[in-house]
């Protein structure tokens, strides 16, 4: 301790100073590419959010477009179409959480209960596959499986039981269930990976002790497995809940069709359609800003709650 205090007081020799400067320079070059790209593709668009307070025109640009105050915020808040889009977004998000979030937890528990190890590994491997497919391919697969003719796989299966054929993808009322199910189909195996890992980390002697005390399998799961997974579950829940306004663009955009109409419109597809194809830049930027502000606020609040309850947070 004493020696370091002494050396700190002594003036730094020029050679050391030079090598320190060279070191800073090398660290800077390592950071340079990422900082430049982030500046261009994140920070400039962040500054571009200011066009939501302008009557932005492509011709005048950000610096010269006239100031419009909250005009566009009032415009979308008083637009019934916007509220319908918001309602769709929150409905799909709700089911994504109620069904899509619990499915991997259940799946992980069920897979762990499987007797044969080889069968277990095979099911796991197959379950990861859809995660690697883009929504374009998933959407192609669903189009074919849910095809209204006798060739659609679902109708073929139902045909065995003397049912159908039915139509699915052109019925507006079916759209939301279909996209929620498609999301589960695509991600359940992959999202279960984290829970498999957590379950493997639970102290096995707890199960032995419970067994000796006469606890059945369900009691063991309820009193040992689930509490053991609680921190990870709450962390994942946090992430999910802070994204309730971001229903992924790909899934909705690629799975909807003309027959579905406005039930298939969520914030991300609405912003794309109105913003880019109808060039309503200021209006949709305003919506995007409010959306990410609310999402950020939810994240902060949910993180506080999680830290207090489970002692685990995102940061």
């Amino acid at each position, binding site marked *: 301790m004493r020696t370091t205090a002494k050396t700190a007081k002594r003036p730094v020799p020029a050679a050391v100073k030079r090598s320190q400067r060279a070191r800073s320079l090398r660290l800077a070059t390592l950071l340079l590419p990422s900082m430049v790209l982030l500046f261009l593709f994140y920070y400039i*668009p962040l500054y571009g959010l200011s066009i939501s307070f302008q009557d932005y025109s492509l011709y005048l640009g950000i610096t010269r477009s006239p100031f419009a105050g909250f005009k566009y915020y009032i415009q979308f808040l008083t637009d019934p179409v916007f509220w319908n889009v918001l309602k769709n977004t929150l409905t799909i998000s709700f089911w994504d959480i109620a069904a899509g979030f619990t499915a991997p937890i259940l799946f992980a528990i069920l897979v762990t209960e499987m007797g044969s190890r080889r069968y277990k590994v095979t099911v796991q491997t197959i379950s990861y596959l859809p995660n690697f497919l883009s929504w374009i391919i998933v959407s192609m697969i669903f189009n074919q499986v849910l095809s209204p003719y006798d060739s659609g796989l679902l109708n073929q299966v139902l045909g065995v039981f003397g049912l159908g054929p039915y139509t699915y993808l052109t019925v507006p009322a079916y759209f939301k269930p279909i996209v929620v199910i498609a999301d589960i189909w695509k991600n359940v195996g992959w999202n279960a990976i984290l829970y498999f890992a957590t379950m493997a980390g639970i102290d096995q002697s707890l199960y032995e002790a419970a067994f000796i005390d006469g606890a059945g399998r369900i009691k063991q799961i309820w009193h040992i497995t689930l509490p053991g997974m609680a921190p990870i579950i709450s962390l994942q829940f946090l992430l999910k809940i802070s994204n309730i306004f971001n229903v992924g663009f790909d899934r909705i955009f690629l799975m909807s069709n003309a027959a579905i109409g406005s039930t298939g419109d969520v914030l991300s597809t609405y912003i794309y359609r109105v913003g880019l194809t109808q060039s309503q830049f200021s209006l949709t930027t305003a919506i995007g800003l409010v959306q990410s502000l609310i999402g950020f606020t939810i994240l902060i609040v949910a993180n506080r709650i999680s830290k207090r309850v489970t002692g685990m947070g995102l940061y």
Partner: protein
Amino acid sequence: MKIYNTPSRRTFQIINNVFMLVFSLTILLPFINLLSISFSNYRAAEAQAVSLLPIGFNLRAYGKIFQDTVFLSSFVNTVWLTVLDTGLTILIAVCAGFALASKHLKHPKLVLFFFLVPMYFSGGLVPTYLVINKYLGLANSFGALIFPVITSPFYIIIFRNNIMNLPQEIIESAEIDGSNEYTTLFRIVMPIIIPTVAAFIIINAVTHWNEWYNVMLYIKDTNKWTLQYYLRDLLNKASIDSVNANMGIVNYETDVHPESFKYAALFVTVLPILAVYPFCQRYFIYGVITGAVKG
């Protein structure tokens, strides 16, 4: 793990095993169905008669695909873009992660903040689109498919944490031996963090292979398309085509039905993934777990 082997336990196990079989079939059967359609002849595809086995087996759809110039250029573009984008993403992230983990970095909090903001906040679609398209002049150029997608703050933070969790003596002793930052990173640190790097190379490559959104936003020329966007175009077009085809004169012996063509294109696109993923599982799993517990 010990479990009471009661009759109800055995019943549960049977139901569970059957359920898992059905679940696996919901993933496998559609693939077999689509594959069969791609191998079937015109008449069968038109009549929507194909189930799990091809009718009138032939490879004409695949032959036709590899004569399609847009498909071929999309294929070539996807390959080189995936390699380039993945390589740059990982290289940039490892470099930045190492610098952020270095204890010699000046203003570490401020620099870290610069990387954390984009993880929670972004300008959103419209401002990003305007910047890329209008102000940076990347419209309809490959640049729009490269520069905006090669910096991932998420990866940077993961590599930073990974490097910070190494025993710091390794880095310190390298410095005492006169190694500068570049040599320390590429000769000392890189070999140690290679499992994480490998995992994220594979995960990232899948992401870039599946890229289509930026093509839709920024690219006009068909010779700059990627495979996924080519498929997306087929997805929109196929139903119209099959109507048109019926109005023309069809040669049932030699023509390829649009549905067969579409699914042949689909299989060529997913084949690399299907071939690779079962063998890379442990990397994926490693990546998922590293990504989740970033702290």
